[in-house]
């Protein structure tokens, strides 16, 4: 009797003393809003605000120290007639397309190799990640030295092997410079592909390989009919991330060539930086950056739709 008395009065006390906020949070809609708030603030502050600000800048004639006024689409119109911009667009497309193809092919090849059983497997897998782990600026400086016209270790090796007679000016020749930049990007990007695809491969039941072998599939048929279709969803996600990253790449070109020689290796990001920050034409820089947006949007939409289709198959 005494026990039940205590319990009842306690419950009563709690319900009376409840804070109004607690009562508000009993409502799931309010609770959901409160729980989402931190994310909303972060996304708004660091993604939505800069994006809106960028759009705002791109339709003004702002310069460093000059707030500028509204000029409509003038900045974009200027870009259409800018030959360096056209080179940058072309470079970005080539850079993204070529590196993606090579990174996917080499990464897949490495992943298939690493998916086998061999001694020192764990060590090799960790080792493969090195180019991805080293800060890009640091590793790019190492490459810059390797491409140096005078001290190039690549030239020295090729020369000693008797493959070349004269030094190759890796970064000084406009077309070679773009190739050099592409090589470094592939070198840095392959580990990401290899490790991600390896993770994908490991989700595939190894019994399927046995089953296919008994069903009469040769090794390449086993890859083509069993492994590849099952790896496709992972591959699409990896390619999606990689394309976005590569399309907006900055550090590598900035460190290696600075967009040169003679603006031959500019990408969207480096050109936007040169115009916007280097030259101080903030509005035009913003316009160049924004020009990337529609392309990336289309890439993302197409790939996400494709991934959804593959996953519901």
């Amino acid at each position: 009797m005494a026990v039940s008395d205590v319990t009842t009065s306690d419950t009563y006390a709690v319900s009376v003393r409840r804070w109004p906020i607690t009562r508000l949070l009993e409502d799931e809609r309010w609770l959901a809003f409160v729980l989402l708030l931190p994310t909303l603030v972060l996304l708004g502050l660091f993604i939505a605000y800069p994006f809106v600000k960028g759009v705002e800048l791109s339709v003004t004639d702002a310069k460093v120290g000059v707030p500028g006024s509204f000029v409509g689409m003038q900045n974009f119109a200027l870009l259409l007639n800018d030959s360096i911009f056209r080179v940058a667009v072309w470079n970005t497309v080539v850079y993204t397309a070529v590196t993606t193809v090579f990174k996917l092919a080499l990464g897949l090849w490495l992943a298939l190799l690493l998916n086998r059983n061999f001694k020192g497997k764990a060590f090799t897998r960790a080792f493969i990640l090195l180019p991805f782990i080293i800060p890009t600026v640091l590793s790019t400086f190492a490459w810059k030295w390797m491409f140096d016209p005078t001290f190039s270790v690549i030239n020295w090796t090729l020369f000693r092997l008797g493959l070349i007679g004269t030094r190759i000016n890796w970064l000084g020749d406009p077309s070679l410079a773009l190739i050099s930049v592409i090589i470094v990007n592939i070198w840095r990007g392959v580990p990401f592909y290899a490790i991600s695809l390896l993770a994908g491969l490991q989700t595939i039941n190894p019994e399927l390989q046995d089953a296919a072998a008994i069903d009469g599939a040769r090794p390449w048929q086993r890859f083509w009919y069993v492994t590849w279709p099952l790896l496709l969803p992972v591959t699409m996600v990896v390619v999606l991330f990689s394309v976005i990253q590569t399309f907006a790449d900055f550090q590598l070109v900035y460190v290696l060539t600075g967009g040169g020689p003679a603006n031959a290796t500019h990408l969207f990001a480096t050109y936007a930086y040169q115009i916007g920050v280097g030259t101080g034409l903030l509005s035009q820089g913003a316009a160049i950056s924004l020009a990337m947006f529609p392309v990336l949007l289309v890439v993302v939409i197409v790939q996400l739709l494709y991934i959804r289709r593959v996953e519901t198959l």
Partner: protein
Amino acid sequence: MARVEIRNLNKTFDGVHAVKDVNLEINDKEFVVLVGPSGCGKTTTLRMVAGLESISSGEVLIGDKVVNELPPMDRDIAMVFQNYALYPHMNVYDNMAFGLKMRRFGRAEIDARVKAAAEILGIQAQLQRKPRQLSGGQRQRVALGRAIVRHPKVFLFDEPLSNLDAKLRVQMRVEIKKIHARLGTTAIYVTHDQVEAMTLGDRVVVMRDGVVQQVGEPLELYNAPANRFVAGFIGSPAMNFATVTIAADADGLLWANNEGIHIKLPAEVAGRLRKHVGESVTLGIRPEDLRAAASSDAADLAVDVIVEVVEKLGSEILLDVKVGPSTMVAAVEPTVRAKVHDQLRLALNPDRLYFFDGASQAAI
């Protein structure tokens, strides 16, 4: 259809000798089951027959032809895997047709074979479904179908029922047996479940630590186990064992003794045990060969026990009892009224006493 022969087969993985000198002849149309606890080398043996595992030494012959160096695809075998191993991105039809497509069969032939197999297995309605839309039993049927359509020389089964629930397992077991009766294809079946082995196999191969313990028809293994391991592995509940000393009395009769057991050995058994007098041997008695003793039963072929657990199964009652220092299980008639802590006298079936050598554990 073909006979399969395994000669002195060995497998060594990184210094572990997983399969040791296995010899086995499997006749055309025969259903042979390899059974043993996990790690006994049964699956490795099967995978060597399939060509999925390299052979360290010895020979595998399929249809009188050595296939050691042939890849799986050229051995004309079909295999059913434990986890079904269905291609998740293909529908049921394509899963079954895959092996035929790889072997360049015509479209009409593929269609006819897939439909025929689907009919045998009762999965015609599921042909357009993806594996993940199927139940466990249906998946297992598709895996069987994939093996059937190929009309292979040999079926290999690697624990195909171990992922199914108990009821479905019994049902699929019957179905596999029916399919084998209908197609007559030589089959090698690996399982760790002795009930599956006994019910499916024309002959059963018991393995342990990579070594074949005994090969024989199911009842042969049950009635005349070659050693203590086979005796304990085959039969459920398992055979009871007790260490006893063989002694001869003044009349020349043999007795088996320990702290709880003092039984006079029947003449037939005594003949075999005469040269073990004074030695310690293992006595084996199956639970079903123990029964509640009646007053007419001879006291010298019975044991006094204390009941520890009573399990009422309906058709019989399992009694976990204490016999001297050791415990035994007795399967007694459901009419026996026994409670925990009861003292009870159990009579031993004199025709079904097993003795195993104390050192080698081989049957005496």
